[in-house]
Each structure stands twice: as structure tokens, then as C-alpha cells.
């Protein structure tokens, strides 16, 4: 990494995350980049979409982050017969008090794993996505704020699989990043097969951070410097996407791109964003909005100013 040759001073906050990433890398073998992206996504206050075939560690990744970051964890397994109330919660009549009382649903957790989100009907999907967007749930006219930080990791199966309701573009746009885990390489898989049970291991893990620290890290991430030269580069990429594609990247995508690049730079221990940070997060941020191929092509074609 070039960071090694940097005169930049390592931020103490980023130092906290180094052992976290190292430990996580031991549990989830050979997925260092995806782990970094997931943590960047969290630092950038975005939500993460993981798309892959079942059994490659999507749930493990979510669980792992919840444990290590000390977040309380809620899991929603999406099914085709799911209703919005199953996610958001519902008002139930309390006989003792003679009134209706709101029972919060599983979405009221700091880290929500929305598993197989594309198995649910659009109605249920949009209930979650609206909660993500607003940061609150409205039930019978009463606002119920969601906890802070609030981080959704949604997983979805590849679109070709049977029984899926693909997320429309407008809802995909609410995820900051989409990543794929992929099969582990042979050495990592060997270690996985020979090693101890991940479930037990997860249960033993102790949090390395508390909520206050995490919020402070998010705060620090937003302070990372972005120079005009880097904005030029980001704008060139956005402009090229609009010039070459029928529907290019939205301004929201542009904001997300910068937030993610800040988080990536923060993780690398820099106080400024450099082009390689932008390059590292570009495909995860743009891929689900304009297509993986197109995003890679844009990056390959756009000269660094």
C-alpha cells in the first residue's frame, strides 16, 4: 500500500479499526477487501447490499460485524408471504392498560440483517427500504425513531434464481454499496474446512468498540479532506456515466461515492482522499446503479486528472 510511504500521520481512530479488521479476517477467510468495504460502508453511514449465492458467508459477515462493533443485531428472514408489520412491528391491544401498545419489529436494531431481501414481495421490501431512508418508523401516526447507528446489511440471491422479486432501481439506489463475496480461494477454503466452527467462534467474540466510539468514527470519517482535484475526478466519472449510458449516476450516487471514498481513505489512515480511494470504492458504489460491467469500463476509460 502506498499508505506505507505516506508522510501522513495515522489517525488514532483508524488504529482502533485495524485489530478489528484483522480479527474479522481470521473468521471470514480471504475476504479482506469485502470486509474493508463493509466497514467503509458503515463508516460512511450507508447501507450494504450483498449479492451472492447462498452459503458463501453473507450472514457470517453481518453477524461478525455486529459482534465486533458491539451493535445489537436483528435479523429478518424475508419470505414471499411476509407483511410490512413483520418488519416494522405492530400495535397490539394491551388488556391490562386497555390501550394499543406498539411492539417494535426486528428492524429496531442497530445492525439489521435483511436476509434474502429479494424473496419478499415489493410491499414488504419497500417497508424496510422506507425505514432505511427515513431513519424512523411511523405507526398509526406516531413516530418511532430507529436506533443510532442504524446499519442495514441486506443480502440477495442472484436475480436468475427462482422465486425472486428483483429490487427496482429506485430502491437499489438506497444502498450505498453492493458487494459480492464469491467462493473462497482454495487455501482459504482449506483453512475454513479444517478450522473450528464459525458459529461457536462468533459466539465467543467480544466487542472491540462501543456505540459512542463508532459514532465518533463516523464523525471523523466525514471530516476527511476532499481536494478540488479529486472532485474533478469524481465529476468526470459522473459526467462520463451520463454521457455514455441511457441513465447515468445520480447526484445521490455522487455523494455516496465521496462518502465511501472518505471512509476508504480513513481506513487506510489518510486524512485526504486520493484517486485510488475513489477507484477502490467506485465499482461497489456504482455497480448496482449502472451495472458492474459499465462501472468497470467507466473507471478504465476515465483518465485521472
Amino acid at each position, binding site marked *: 500500500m*502506498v499508505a506505507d*510511504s*505516506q*508522510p*501522513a500521520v495515522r489517525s488514532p481512530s483508524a488504529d482502533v479499526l485495524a485489530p478489528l479488521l484483522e480479527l474479522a479476517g481470521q473468521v471470514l477467510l480471504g475476504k479482506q477487501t469485502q470486509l474493508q468495504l463493509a466497514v467503509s460502508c458503515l463508516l460512511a453511514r450507508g447501507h450494504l447490499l450483498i449479492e451472492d449465492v447462498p452459503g458463501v458467508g453473507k450472514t457470517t459477515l453481518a453477524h461478525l460485524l455486529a459482534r465486533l462493533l458491539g451493535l445489537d443485531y436483528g435479523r429478518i428472514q424475508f419470505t414471499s408471504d411476509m407483511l410490512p408489520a413483520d418488519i416494522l412491528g405492530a400495535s397490539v391491544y394491551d388488556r391490562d392498560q386497555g390501550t394499543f401498545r406498539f411492539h417494535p419489529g426486528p428492524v429496531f436494531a442497530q445492525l439489521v440483517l435483511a436476509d434474502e431481501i429479494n424473496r419478499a414481495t415489493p410491499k414488504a421490501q419497500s417497508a424496510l427500504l422506507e425505514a432505511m431512508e427515513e431513519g424512523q418508523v411511523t405507526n398509526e401516526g406516531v413516530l418511532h425513531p430507529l436506533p443510532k447507528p442504524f446499519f442495514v446489511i441486506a443480502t440477495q440471491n442472484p436475480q436468475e434464481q427462482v422465486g425472486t422479486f428483483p429490487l427496482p432501481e429506485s430502491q437499489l439506489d438506497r444502498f450505498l454499496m453492493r458487494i459480492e463475496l464469491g467462493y473462497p480461494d482454495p487455501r482459504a477454503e482449506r483453512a475454513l474446512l479444517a478450522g473450528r466452527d464459525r458459529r461457536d467462534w462468533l459466539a465467543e467474540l467480544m466487542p472491540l468498540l462501543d456505540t459512542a466510539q463508532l459514532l465518533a468514527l463516523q464523525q471523523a470519517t466525514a471530516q476527511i*479532506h476532499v*481536494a*478540488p*482535484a*479529486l472532485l*474533478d475526478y469524481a465529476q468526470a466519472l459522473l459526467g*462520463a456515466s451520463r*454521457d*455514455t449510458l441511457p441513465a447515468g449516476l445520480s447526484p445521490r450516487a455522487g455523494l455516496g461515492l465521496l462518502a465511501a471514498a472518505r471512509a476508504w481513505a480513513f481506513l487506510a489512515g489518510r*486524512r*485526504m*482522499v*486520493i*484517486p*485510488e480511494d475513489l*477507484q477502490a470504492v467506485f465499482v461497489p458504489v456504482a455497480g448496482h446503479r449502472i451495472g458492474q460491467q459499465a462501472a468497470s*469500463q467507466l*473507471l*478504465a*476509460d*476515465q*483518465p*485521472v*486528472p
Partner: protein
Amino acid sequence: MKDALADRPLEPATVGGLLLVFALIGAPHLWHLSPLLMSVFYAALAWRGVSLIHPRLLPGRRLRGLLALAALVAVLWSVSGQLDGRALGVGLLTVMAGLKSLEVSSRRDLYVTVFLGCFLLATQFLFDQGLWISLYLAPLLVVLLGLLVRNNRVNPPPWPRALREAGWLMVAGLPMALLLFVLFSRLAGPLWALTAPAPGVTGMTDRLSPGSVSQLSQSGAVAFRVSFTGPRPPQAELYWRGPVFWDTDGRTWRAGVPLESVSRAGGVGAVWSQQVTLEPSNQRWLFALDRPLQAPPQARLSGDGQLLSAEPINTRRHYRVRSQAGVGEVRLAAADRRRALAVPESVVTARMRALVAEWRQADPRPGALVAAALRHFRHQPFVYTLRPPALPDNPVDGFLFETKRGFCEHYATSFAVLMRLAGVPTRLVGGYQGGEWNPVGEHMIVRQSDAHAWAEVWLGDRWQRVDPTAAVAPDRVEQSIDPTATTSGPMVYQGPPPSWLARLWRDGGWFVDGLALSWQRWVVGYSDRTQAGLLERLGLGWLSGYRLALAAVAAAGLGMLPLWWLLRRGEAVTPDPAQRVWQRLLVRLRAAGVDLSPNLSPSDVGRRAAARFPAQRAAIERIVGLYLAQRYGHAASSVGLRRLRAAVRRLRLRR
């Protein structure tokens, strides 16, 4: 900065578009260049087109060299023996443009070829500067620009969008073009005035013989267009005066000028101001209403009222002239009197002498003799026709006493011979009579079919116009001849009021004719004089000479301002100093053989450079760090910049 895309291969759609637009740009040359050259041009384009599907058919470097050589020979051979410099230059450019298309494979080639296409397009104006060719070529220029637009994008936009952008670029450039067109100094000399002879031009010539005008009358070609500043003369007064014929051998009359110049009398009546656009005639006569008062520039007014251009008129000519009836010589010099009375003995017959003697006996005054002759034409069964019978031996005698069927020149020449026999000095005048008024363009169209000949007789103190044709066919003077009527019977004049469809057709024709005239006057004919006139009217009369040149430059500068501002806004033109240092380093690294694509981040550039020059790893990493801090950090400083510069300067790319 070097264009990183220059060597990128082209898409077939781009090459196809290029070939199509080349084929269309070259098409008008089919009328100008030899068939050999045009077939080479189109064969080369077709070859490149086929190789889009079968790339193996593309000629190699050596074959291309041979082709170029063969093409050069073909050009030289096809223009050998001609003195037309255009054919050589344009032929060479056209053929080589065709061959160049065989070479087009990368974006760099496309740039060159597009500029070549612009040149090819410009060469069309060496042959024709009319409105239609301009309307034809303008969209092709947009397509050429569209090629550049497509070529300058990483992912070429679809054709409709590229064309729309190119169109906007053209529109955006228009004000600037207009400004330069209006203000740019015009050369009075014939820089662009091409002097190639206009082939196959018909019109009034310096010879008049029976049949020469009736032949002209079959042509609907435009002779000239006139607009009037001020009132328009009545149709019967529209005698457009051209050559004056003094001498005859009895059959053919030759144009000439008076031997002696005499003072002229002032005219009477209205002064008609005309603005004439004359089509090329290869002759020297400028036509004007009977009679011109003063010669326009580059022409002179002869004693008998002919406007003679200094050079034969082989391009369209615009001039202003004022005319007034009654202007003319006050005295007939003795030498000219002899000329105006000369009749070759060979054509005079007893019948003619007898006829003239009869008239002289009745009343020998010139006016009475003229009246007698006209009466003769009117009362005898003379017929006015476009298809007179042939008169091989003595045309005047044959016409007067045998056939009695003729066109204006028959009447005019016979009348002149009779008058001369009777002792009245007479000369013939050639020109045009009448014309079609275009109410849309507010101008008059005078066609070859309006060609006419009439006589002028000396009445002792002045020359009097006498039109013997009018005695036979008074309608001729009021209406135009329909050139499509080719009957051999009596003359057919333009028929009954036209139906609405014919009216629409006629009005459309007028509109188009008006457009073409405006184009000629204001675009092609925009000369140093027009420029001065226009500036005068805009109150900018003091703009002339060097002041005009300065104004053009200043206007161009002002026109550039928005562009400069736009570019500045894009911040693409002023790289920051650190970036410039970095760009220079990239050039050095590329030259040293480091493979660097433009999408690499500075860190990746550093890694590749360090891999190639491991000994310099530390120095390279330091440079990368300094550059990133300077350009992307929040504390860029002159100290940092100096350090970066020094580090780059010290870097020695040795392995």
C-alpha cells in the same frame, strides 16, 4: 497533453459514416473532374467500405504506396493539356482523399481525414458558389463535425446525439462567422474570382444575323436580374440596351463603337435606378435600360451608350446603374454618318430601290420615311414567328418580298437596310426587351427568351429608337415570349391567367429565384464596396483600411471571450502547477518504457515505475507522496511544490 485515445481503433460505424460523408462531399465534382479521377475516388471509398466487412482486404503499406503513385500519374494524365489550375489541384486532393480513406484505422487517422474532408468540401466552392451547393454542403459539414464529436468521446455517443451536438457547435459558431464575414477586409483584387471560361454560355453576341436572336429566344436561361431602387418603369419602356451594330455585310451585323466621340445631351423624364446581377456571358456588355447615364466601376460608357466591361464577364457581375430616356449624342460625326448609311451593293435589289423611292417621293423627311416603313410592315401580310423559313441568298430581299415571316432581327435588319437606302442614318441595337417581375423577391428576371433587336435612326438632332417588331406584333413589347412554345406558326404569348396550381408553381419559382438573387448579392457578391456601403449604413463608415482589420481582430477577440470563460469554468485549461510537474514526469516515465494508461491512480503509477526502476523506489515513492499531498491534501504549499519539483528533477531513470 498527448491524446491518449489517438491510437485507439475506430468502430465500423464511425468509418462507415466517414465514407458516406466523403462520397457525398465529392459528388458535385462528378460535374467538374474527369470520370477517371472520380472513379478512382469512389473505388477507393468502396474498397474501404468492403473491408469493413472483410478486414483482410485492406491494402498493405506497400500497395498503398503504389496506389498513391498510380493515382498521381492518373491525375497528371487527366489534366494534361489543360490550363485550368483548379482541375490539377482539386483532382489531386480528391483522389488522395479517397486513398486516405484506405489508411484510416485509428482515431489519429480520423482527425487527419476529417480535416481533409473539410478541404474537399471547400474545393466545391472553387466551382460553384451558389445557394444550392451551400445548402447541400452545410449538413455535410455538420456530419464531419459529428465525426469529431464521436471521435473525442471515450464511448462514442450514438449518431443522432453526435449530430445534434455538432449542429449546436455550428450554431454557436455562426455569430462569430457572421461577424468575421461582415468585418473581414475584402480584397478588391481577383483572389477568389476564378477566371475559367464558363462553358456553353448563350447570350447576346457581337454578331447579329437573321436567326441569331430567334435561337436565343428558345432558352429560358436567366440573362440578368434587376431590382429597382425607386419606381419601376412601365413594361413597354423595358428596353435593355446592349451592343450597338454599326457595320453590315448585308447578312451579318457587327458590333462597334462610334469612331468619333461627341458631346451628349441631357435626358428627359424619370431616372431609373437599377441594381443588376448579370449572369456570365463571356461578352463585355453590361445591360442597362435605354439609356445609361454613367458607367459602373470597371466599365466604360461608349459614345453611343454601350456599357462595356473592362474584362469579359465570366463570373456573375453586380452593378448599379441609372438610366434616363433621351440621353444621347447631339451631333453625328461625318465618319459615323458614313458608317450609318453604308449598304453593301450586293444586297440591294431593284425591288428595294423601288420601294424606297416610292416612300421618298411621298415625303422625304426622315420621320415620314420611318413612318412609311412601319406602315409597310403593318399593312403587308408580315408574320412574327420564332421559326422563320431559311433565307440563304439575300436575307433582306427574301424576307421583305418573299417569305414575310420573321423574328425581331429580320424586321430590325430589313428596316435598317431600307432606312439607309432612303438616306436616314440607322444603326441596330441588341439587347433584351421586357422581363418577368418577381413580386416575391421584388426584382425583374430577364431571360434569354427576352432577347431582342431594334433600330435607332438619326433624326438630324438625336437618335430615335424605332422598334419595327412592335409594328407587326405590338404584344411582343407588352408580354414575354413563352420559351416552351416551339410552334412554327405565329408567336404564342404567355397564355390565359394560370390555374391556382400553376400560380403556386410560379410563385414558388419566384420565391426561390429571389432567394438565389439575395444569396448572390449579399453572400457571394459581398465585396469591398458592398462592405463599405453596409458599414456606412450602420454608421461605421470610419471603419476602413487598418481600422477595419483592427475591428475584425477585436470582434474576434470579443467572440472568443465566452469560449474562454466556458473553458475556465471547466477548469480544464489551467492545470495546477503540481499537476504540470506530474504530467511531465508521466511523459518521462512513458518515454523510459513504463506502461502507463491514463486511468492509473498516482499510487499505481508509482508502483509501476518502482517495479521498472527498483533502484529508484524510494525516490519515486517520495515523489508520489509529495504529489498526492500537494494536489489532494488540504495543506498544499509553495514549499511542498518546490520539494516536488526538486525531487522530480533529481530523479534519474536508470536501472
